[in-house]
């Protein structure tokens, strides 16, 4: 009996070992996923691997991050992208230039108006048309409002990641007012699809102009309140000061752009370096901070919001009357009223809708200073109604590339603060 029991126990132990083998390898398999280069070395040592995301609330979307920890210190980290990859570059090759405009809304979904503007500017450069001055001013206004909205989210979310929940609520209150303006202006809060090749879909009414004016007037004190919660908040400053430092040389070499680059002391802003639209007629400064840490990036964003308010105010004062649609037959969609009454325009409308506008053979790259950084579109045309190749140069993608550089050697609690300060949007990074 006793012998039998031991035999049983032995047999049980043997099967247990036998069963444990595939189980263990399954765990190891998950950790040593081919998608990552982090190796799971010795589970009994201090180092462990932590998988953040892709559904972690603090990673700002579906960013998956594998961090290797020694105690609380990050030893290595690997960002993993592709959870929101929708193949927009493939889609673009299969739809006409106009049809792609709604897709640009879904890139950086925090500032869709900025993407709309950036895309049509690239196509206009390819076609060789220019929007009328009123449309250009409206594009400047919507771009800057989108920038304010995006930076407000970045500042609020950075506060939220660190524990300052109130700032998030207050910035979202302001963003709500902006969304009301977008709805009044474009007909949609989120997916605006507002611009058209050669102009914009509909003119800005006087009521909308007044709404924007009201927002611009009431906003600075509200921003000052938000700043007051953070600027001299000891917890906030100590969590961000000297955290995630990026040197000037490294920032340039790694392709950092936008507020992140200017937080590292590089005075590079495409609105000034390569003026597009009417930016060279407007007076504004480029905030630059030299520290290269999370706090510097926060300060750049807050100061850019202030500059953007100034730009919107100037654009509202200077905006001329006139058409908002370029007159360029066979390139730009004709006005609807004329389509219904004139034969020529009806033919052009039919051809443009069915076969698309016909650009010359060639390739262009046009970049704008988006809210996250350099947002560029590279288009190869073979003279057809749809792009042969369209590449989206998304700033979030390039900014995220430097994440391991910023994280390694920091504490685990700094990870969310650093991701928040880089301000990635995964819709754009994953395309």
């Amino acid at each position: 009996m006793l012998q039998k029991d031991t035999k049983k126990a032995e047999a049980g132990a043997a099967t247990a070992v036998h069963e444990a083998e595939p189980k263990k390898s399954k765990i190891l398999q998950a950790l040593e996923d081919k998608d990552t280069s982090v190796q799971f070395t010795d589970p009994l040592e201090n180092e462990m691997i932590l998988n953040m995301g892709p559904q972690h609330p603090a990673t700002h979307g579906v960013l998956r991050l594998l961090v290797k920890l020694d105690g609380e210190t990050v030893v290595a980290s690997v960002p993993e992208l592709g959870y929101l990859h929708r193949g927009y570059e493939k889609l673009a090759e299969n739809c006409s230039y106009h049809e792609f405009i709604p897709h640009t809304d879904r890139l950086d979904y925090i500032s869709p108006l900025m993407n709309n503007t950036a895309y049509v500017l690239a196509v206009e450069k390819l076609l060789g048309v220019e929007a009328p001055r009123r449309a250009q001013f409206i594009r400047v206004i919507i771009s800057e409002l989108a920038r304010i909205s995006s930076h407000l989210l970045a500042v609020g979310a950075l506060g939220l990641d660190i524990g300052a929940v109130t700032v998030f609520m207050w910035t979202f209150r302001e963003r709500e007012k902006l969304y009301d303006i977008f709805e009044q202006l474009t007909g949609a809060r989120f997916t605006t699809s507002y611009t058209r090749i050669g102009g914009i879909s509909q003119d800005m009414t006087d009521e909308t102009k007044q709404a924007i004016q009201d927002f611009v007037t009431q906003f600075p004190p509200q921003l000052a309140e938000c700043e007051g919660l953070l600027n001299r908040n000891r917890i906030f400053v100590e969590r961000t000061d000297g955290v995630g430092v990026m040197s000037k040389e490294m920032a340039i070499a790694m392709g950092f752009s936008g507020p992140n680059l200017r937080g590292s002391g590089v005075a590079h802003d495409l609105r000034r370096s390569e003026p597009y639209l009417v930016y060279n007629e407007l007076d504004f400064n480029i905030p630059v901070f030299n520290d290269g840490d999370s706090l510097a990036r926060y300060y750049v964003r807050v100061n850019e919001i202030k500059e953007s308010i100034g730009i919107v105010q100037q654009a509202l004062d200077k905006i001329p009357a006139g058409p908002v649609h370029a007159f360029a037959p066979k390139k730009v969609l004709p006005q609807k009223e004329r389509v219904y009454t004139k034969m020529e325009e009806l033919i052009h409308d039919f051809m443009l809708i069915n076969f698309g506008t016909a650009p010359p053979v060639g390739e262009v790259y046009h970049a704008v200073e988006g809210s996250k950084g350099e947002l560029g579109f590279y288009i190869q045309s073979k003279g057809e109604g749809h792009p042969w190749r369209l590449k989206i140069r998304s700033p979030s993608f390039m900014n995220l590339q430097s994440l391991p550089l910023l994280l390694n050697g920091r504490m685990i609690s700094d990870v969310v603060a650093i991701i928040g300060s880089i301000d990635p949007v995964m819709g754009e990074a994953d395309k």
Partner: protein
Amino acid sequence: MLSTVVEKLKTSLPASILEVKDFRSETTIHVKKDDIVKVSTFLRDDSDCLFEYLSDLCGADAYTPENRFEVVYNMYSISLKHRLRLKVFVEENDLHVPSVTTVWPGAGWPERETYDMFGIVFDGHNDLRRMYMPEEFEHFPLRKDFPLMGIPDSIPLPRK
């Protein structure tokens, strides 16, 4: 401004340049594939060029029997404020291009993306994995012979 860059490149590395194109006041230089690292290092360091910032790197599929693929480098000079585009051709039967990560470390992810989408292999890249698609995926989605609807069953669903 860019004529000085082109002239300087032509005098310094005449054997590497195949063609210079101008369209919409943007300059594209076709470069020999094996010389891309040499040319980009020159363009980064020369005092009249100073292209220290690689805006973008991407691939394209011309779908022609010869020179089927191309790799496009969009560069920008922050100090001199000008842009330039380099281009190399890649044959379908020899998908290897020297990596420029030694020149611009920021080329790492765009090169991974190009590998993922076109199957172009960057020699010298220290971490050439797929960027968006799963590692087991066998196809290259942005090639022109990859159908828009995708290939059924090409992405294995997770098993229970």
